[in-house]
C-alpha cells in the first residue's frame, strides 16, 4: 500500500490543507465559550447530521468493520443498522429537542439539574477519563494504520495527526469540528463508494458476489462436516454459516448472537451512545433550533442506512478476491492496494484520514467541554465570563491534546489488544450511565442518591463479570467461562444496566423524593414546553 504515486499525494495534500484552512477560518469568528463549545448555537441540521455520522465512523472502524465482515459476514452491520437507527429516531423526537431546550452545555450538567452535583461529577469524571485515554488510543491507532498505509514512522504519524487535528479544534471549536466533519463525511463516503463499486465490478456485481458467497458457504459446511462426520444434519447450511445473515443464533461462533445485538446493543449501548455520549449529543446542542436538532438526527439515521454497504460489503468482496488473508483487518487495505488505480488510492487515503480526524476532533472538543464546564466553571470559577471560558477552553483543549500525545507514546509498545480493552471499559459504564439518564429523564420518583448508588453498583457489576470471565481467574477457580462467546462486552452492558436500574429504583423508594424544581427536568415535565 506504500507504493503511492505523486497524484495520490496531491489528493491527500489538497484534502489536508483544505480541512485545516477551513477550521482556522472558522476560528477567527470565535468570541465566547459558547462559540467554542456550542458554535454559538448556529449550526444547521445538515452539517450536524453529517458530523454525527463522521464522528461515529472512525478510521479504525472502516478497517475493523471490513475486517469483521471478512471474518464473520454481514452480521457486523447490526452495529450500524438496528444498533443505531432506532435509537437515533427515538433520540430525535424525544430526547434531543428536550436537551436543546434546557440550554445545557453537557449531559452531566443536566444530571445536576435533575439530581445533584454528585451525579454530575461522577458521570463527567467517567466520560473525561474514558475520552482522554481514548484520544491517545485513537492517535496511536491512526499512527499504526498510517505506518502500514503510508509507510510513515509511527512517532511522526502521531505528531502529524495531533497537530493537524489540534490546530483547527483549538482555534475553531465545535463549529470547526462540525464543518470539517461535513467535508470528512463526504470524502469518507466517496472514498469507500469507489472501493465498493470497483470491487463489485471485479466479482461480477451484486449477483456475482451473492453467488460466490453461497459457494463459500457450501465449502464451509463441507469442511466442518469433514471435521465432525458424526454430527447431525451436517450438510445443511445454518444461519451461522450464512455470510449475509443479520440475525445469528444464541450459540453463534461469532461475537454477534441476536441476544447481544438486541438486548445489549440495540437496547442499551446504542441509546447510551446516541442519547448520553457527550461527543455525539454536543453538536445537536449547538443547533439553531430544536427542529434543526431533530432534523440532524433524522438525517444521520438516514445516512446510516448506507454505511454498512460501503464499509462492510468491501470486506465480503475481499473474502472472494483474497480468501487467504491471515488477518481480516487487512481486507480493506488489500482491496485498496490491489484494485484502485493511482489518484483514487489518494482519494481513499484521504477518506481514511477523514474518518480518523473526525472522531479525534470530536472527542477532543467534547472532553474539553466536560472539563471546562463540569469542573473548572462548576468548582473553580462559577463566575467566569463567557470570554474567559473561551480562553480556558482553548487551554484545556491544548492540555488534553498534549496528554493524548503522551498517552499514545506511553502505550505504543503495549500489546495491540489495548484498543479492545478500552472499548470494553466503555461498555462498563455506558449501561449504568444509561440507567441514570433514563430514570432521571423518564421517572419522577428517581432520586440523586439512587442514581449515584445505581451508577456505581452497575459499574461494579460489569467489572466483576469481566474479572470472572478472564481465563486466569476462572481457570484458577476451576470454573467454566461465564460467557460462551468471544468478546462478550455486549453482555456486560446488559447486566450492568439491569443491576444499575434495580438499584436506582430500590434506593429511590428508600430515599426522599426530589423537590419540584428538580423534577421539572424530566422529559415530560415543564421543560417540554418551554425554552430555558
Amino acid at each position: 500500500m506504500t507504493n503511492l504515486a505523486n497524484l495520490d499525494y496531491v489528493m491527500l495534500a489538497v484534502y489536508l490543507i483544505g480541512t485545516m484552512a477551513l477550521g482556522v477560518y472558522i476560528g477567527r469568528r470565535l468570541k465566547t465559550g459558547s462559540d467554542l463549545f456550542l458554535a454559538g448555537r448556529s449550526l444547521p441540521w445538515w452539517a450536524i447530521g453529517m458530523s454525527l455520522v463522521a464522528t461515529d465512523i472512525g478510521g479504525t472502524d472502516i478497517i475493523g468493520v471490513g475486517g469483521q465482515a471478512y471474518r464473520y459476514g454481514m452480521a457486523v452491520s447490526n452495529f450500524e443498522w438496528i444498533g443505531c437507527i432506532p435509537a437515533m429516531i427515538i433520540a430525535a423526537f424525544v430526547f434531543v429537542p428536550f436537551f436543546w431546550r434546557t440550554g445545557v452545555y453537557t449531559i452531566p450538567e443536566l444530571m445536576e439539574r435533575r439530581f445533584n452535583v454528585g451525579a454530575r461529577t461522577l458521570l463527567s469524571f467517567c466520560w473525561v477519563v474514558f475520552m482522554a485515554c481514548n484520544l491517545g488510543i485513537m492517535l496511536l491507532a491512526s499512527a499504526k494504520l498510517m505506518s502500514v498505509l503510508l509507510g510513515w514512522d509511527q512517532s511522526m504519524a502521531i505528531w502529524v495527526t495531533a497537530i493537524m487535528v489540534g490546530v483547527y479544534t483549538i482555534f475553531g471549536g465545535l463549529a470547526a469540528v462540525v464543518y470539517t466533519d461535513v467535508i470528512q463525511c463526504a470524502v469518507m463516503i466517496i472514498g469507500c463508494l469507489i472501493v465498493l463499486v470497483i470491487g463489485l465490478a471485479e466479482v461480477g456485481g451484486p449477483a456475482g458476489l451473492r453467488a460466490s458467497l453461497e459457494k463459500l458457504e457450501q465449502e464451509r459446511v463441507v469442511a466442518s462436516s469433514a471435521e465432525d462426520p458424526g454430527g447431525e444434519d451436517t450438510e445443511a447450511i445454518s444461519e451461522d454459516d450464512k455470510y449475509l445473515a443479520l440475525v445469528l443464533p444464541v450459540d453463534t461462533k461469532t461475537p454477534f448472537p441476536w441476544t447481544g445485538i438486541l438486548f445489549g446493543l440495540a437496547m442499551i449501548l446504542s441509546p447510551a451512545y446516541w442519547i448520553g455520549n457527550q461527543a455525539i449529543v454536543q453538536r445537536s446542542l449547538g443547533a439553531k433550533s430544536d427542529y434543526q436538532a431533530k432534523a440532524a438526527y433524522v438525517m444521520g439515521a438516514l445516512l446510516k442506512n448506507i454505511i454498512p454497504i460501503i464499509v462492510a460489503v468491501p470486506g465480503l468482496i475481499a473474502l472472494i478476491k483474497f480468501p487467504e488473508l491471515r488477518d481480516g483487518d487487512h481486507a480493506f487495505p488489500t482491496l485498496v492496494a490491489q484494485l484502485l488505480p493511482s489518484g483514487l488510492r489518494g482519494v481513499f487515503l484521504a477518506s481514511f484520514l477523514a474518518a480518523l480526524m473526525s472522531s479525534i476532533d470530536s472527542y477532543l472538543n467534547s472532553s474539553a467541554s466536560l472539563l471546562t464546564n463540569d469542573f473548572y466553571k462548576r468548582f473553580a470559577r462559577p463566575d467566569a465570563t463567557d470570554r474567559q471560558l473561551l480562553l480556558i477552553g482553548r487551554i484545556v483543549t491544548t492540555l488534553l491534546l498534549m496528554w493524548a500525545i503522551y498517552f499514545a507514546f506511553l502505550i505504543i509498545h503495549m500489546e495491540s489488544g489495548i484498543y479492545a480493552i478500552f472499548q470494553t471499559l466503555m461498555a462498563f459504564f455506558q449501561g449504568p450511565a444509561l440507567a441514570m439518564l433514563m430514570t432521571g429523564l423518564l421517572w419522577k420518583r428517581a432520586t440523586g442518591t439512587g442514581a449515584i448508588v445505581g451508577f456505581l453498583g452497575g459499574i461494579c457489576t460489569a467489572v466483576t463479570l469481566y474479572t470472572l470471565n478472564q481465563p486466569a481467574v476462572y481457570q484458577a477457580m476451576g470454573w467454566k467461562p461465564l460467557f460462551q462467546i468471544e468478546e462478550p462486552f455486549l453482555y456486560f452492558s446488559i447486566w450492568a444496566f439491569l443491576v444499575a436500574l434495580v438499584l436506582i429504583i430500590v434506593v429511590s423508594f428508600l430515599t426522599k423524593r426530589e423537590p419540584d424544581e428538580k423534577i421539572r427536568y424530566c422529559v415530560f415535565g415543564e421543560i417540554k414546553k418551554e425554552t430555558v
Partner: protein
Amino acid sequence: MTILHTIGDFVRDGLGLIPLSYIRILFVAILVALLLWVLMLPNRETTPPDTKPTWANNLKTWAAITLLLQIAIYSIF
C-alpha cells in the same frame, strides 16, 4: 459452577429454544412499531414552527423512509 453460571445457562438455554425465524419477526416488529409511533407523532413535533409544513420539511417523511429501508433490510436478510 456458581449461581452466576446457573443463571447464565438458564437464560441462554431458554432463549436458545426460540426459533430463529421468530426472532427475525421480532426484529422487524420492533422496527414496524417504531414506524407506527413516528407516523402517529403530532405534526407540530415534526415540522418547523415558522415555515409552511410540506412533505419535504416534515421529519416524519424522512424518519419513515429510514425505517422502511430498515424493515426491508431485516425482512430480506
